[in-house]
């Protein structure tokens, strides 16, 4: 007899991962603005404060730099802090601690210490929250050696990657997508881990490889479904981790399909798609390319408040269909 499939939302899956980790290891604690009785800006921590108390679910003042500094110090002292930002945009305020402290300690102290902290960063556009609350800044942090950067695209991965991040001895930045919090999906009850640094092929195909991240994985899969009806078989790779990058999976796929499209929400210029394109151009897959590499990313503009423009500023399914079709048909 098969057990019924248990579905959770992306937010519930994260909360379950947090609770699982806190039950298993008393060094784990949560910090963030309004994560206590309010339950978090996106209700991810919910009632965890009632289960674990205010010592382990700590509301912080509105000072991201201060909270990040406490998290780094706590991690150095042997705790396992998990810091929630209300919006990933506010990581800008905490850059000193993230980039110059958390990422560097292990290296500057000769490996004698590590900084096992996790930062949860709600990111992305589509909520009408305008330019200062809608960015996708994951490529910034993925540029910094010493950090690990993951981007779960499903409730299943949200739980598994977060648990792996909490286990990890190094600082891990978890970029969650605000539009995915309400997405439902199968989430096993046990405490499973998704390995950091491993991409996954979400759909097999032989005519084009679409490398996508976060919410763009779903748009790429929708596009692939439509294109399949036209005889174009797209292979969709969910990157899952930006640093360290799973280069082998991408290279192998492109060698098979001979075409590459990168779809991501961050600003196209100098973004993750540029890195993947260069990776392929430098790799053995270069000799297998039968078309120019296509990048679909955010436009070179702050995210607009106007809902129509907000949508137009990042890749949408219809645009992915059209551009990938053009790529495979040799029109670009």
């Amino acid at each position, binding site marked *: 007899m098969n057990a019924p499939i248990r579905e959770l939302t992306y937010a519930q899956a994260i909360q379950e991962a947090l609770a699982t980790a806190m039950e298993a290891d008393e060094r784990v604690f949560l910090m963030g603005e309004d994560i206590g009785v309010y339950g978090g800006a996106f209700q991810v921590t919910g009632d965890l404060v009632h289960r674990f108390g205010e010592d382990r679910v700590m509301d912080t003042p509105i000072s991201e730099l201060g909270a990040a500094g406490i998290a780094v110090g706590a991690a150095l002292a042997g705790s396992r802090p998990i810091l929630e930002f209300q919006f990933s945009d506010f990581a800008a305020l905490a850059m000193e601690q993230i980039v110059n402290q958390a990422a560097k300690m292990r290296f500057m102290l000769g490996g004698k210490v590590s900084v096992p902290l996790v930062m949860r960063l709600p990111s992305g556009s589509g909520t009408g929250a305008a330019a200062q609350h809608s960015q996708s800044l994951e490529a910034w942090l993925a540029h910094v050696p010493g950090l690990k950067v993951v981007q779960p695209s499903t409730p299943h991965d949200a739980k598994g990657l977060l648990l792996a991040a909490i286990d990890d001895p190094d600082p891990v930045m978890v970029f969650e997508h605000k539009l995915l919090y309400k997405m439902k999906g199968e989430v096993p009850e046990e405490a499973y881990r998704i390995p950091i640094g491993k991409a996954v092929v979400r759909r097999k195909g*032989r*005519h084009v490889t679409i490398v996508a991240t976060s919410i763009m994985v779903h748009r790429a899969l929708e596009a692939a*479904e439509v294109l*399949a*009806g036209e*005889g*174009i*078989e797209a292979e969709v790779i969910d990157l899952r981790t930006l640093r360290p990058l799973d280069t082998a999976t991408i290279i192998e796929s492109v060698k*098979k399909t*001979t075409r590459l499209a990168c779809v991501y929400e961050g600003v196209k210029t100098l973004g993750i798609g540029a890195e993947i394109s260069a990776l392929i151009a430098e790799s053995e897959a*270069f*000799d*297998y*390319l*039968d*078309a120019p590499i296509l990048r679909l990313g955010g436009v070179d503009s702050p995210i607009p408040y106007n809902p129509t423009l907000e949508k137009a500023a990042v890749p949408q399914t219809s645009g992915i269909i059209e551009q990938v079709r053009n790529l*495979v*048909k*040799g*029109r*670009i």
Partner: protein
Amino acid sequence: MPIEVILPKVDMDMATGKIAKWHVKEGDAVKKGGLLFEIETDKAAMEIDAPSDGIIRNITAFEGAIVPVGQAVALIYQDGESASAPVAAQPLPPVKPITPAPRPDAEQPAVLPAAAASGRFPATPLARRLAKQAGITLENIAGSGPRGRIAAIDVQGALAKPAAPQRVEPGSFEVIPLDGMRRTIAQRLTLSKQTVPHFYLTVNCDLTRLSEIREILNAQAPRDAQKLPVWKLSINDFIIKAMASALKQVPDANVTWADEGIHRHHSCDVGVAVAVEGGLFTPVVRAAETKSLSQVSKEMKDLATRARARKLLPAEYQGGTTTISNLGMYGIEQFTAIINPPHATILAVGAAMERFVPVNGLPVLRTQMTCTLSCDHRAVDGALGAQLLAAFRTFIEEPALMLA
């Protein structure tokens, strides 16, 4: 999961194989053990069978493609898988239609005059690689992509089309692509001629006794069920046997050179050069000194037949210490051969010819055959080579000694 069809390693030092011919096409149902495709390696052609039942798809290596060992060249989908594959029922036509002409509103002409004039042709990396593998230039291929860019499908189209009749210009030539066998011959013989110190010894062998004995043996051959003689000995069969007997008599010449020391072989294995379409093989008659002439003859016939069909197993053309290269059938009187490494010697055999030779001061007509032995001086010195060749001549001139 569909099952990958990989290019197998069928020869010891094989790194790549060329897909010579597909016997199935995209979407065909295949049976486990059924013939899928033929590959051509450095040495041989091999037939590759299906590893399982199913539907063949995703054929990625077209005929003529050179593929690394171990690379998947197609997938076999099981029953359930083909059903669930989204567009499995509809094999994809070439995804890129050949656009006849640019639309009037297209920003660019199909081929930039500048590119054509400069001799540079926009092409994808894959198209360039395929063209290079197939030994064709991009010059005459019409690119179907933007700005006339040549993609893989254009190269494949050009390969599929019969070449247009071309006016022959004085001084013009065509490039014949190098296959594995041609590359191997070039590489091994260049290595031999450049690194093996050759010297040459020539003798004339009188064939009077050999011809008599051959006639008797062939006339006396028993008949099989179809009343055909069970053997028909050729002069070459005698030559193989005589060379093996000579090696047995002069064991110091039954050697191969190696850095660790000279290998002196215990059995007299004689390679025989067999010309085949596009090259040659040297299958080896093993321990020929222990075999009867009829055995040698039968074995050689089988090896030669299979060599021409490129069906020899690698083990059948490896090893040995010497080679027989016989160009007598072309009327060649005498020639010198390049040693086939790691062999120490090679015997170049000319045609049987009638010559006047002095016997007791009078010219007498005799049938003679001129043989030139090339020796690897590292392993076989002049006197040793001379002993070997003298022994060979003795066995040819008095074949009865091979019975001893």
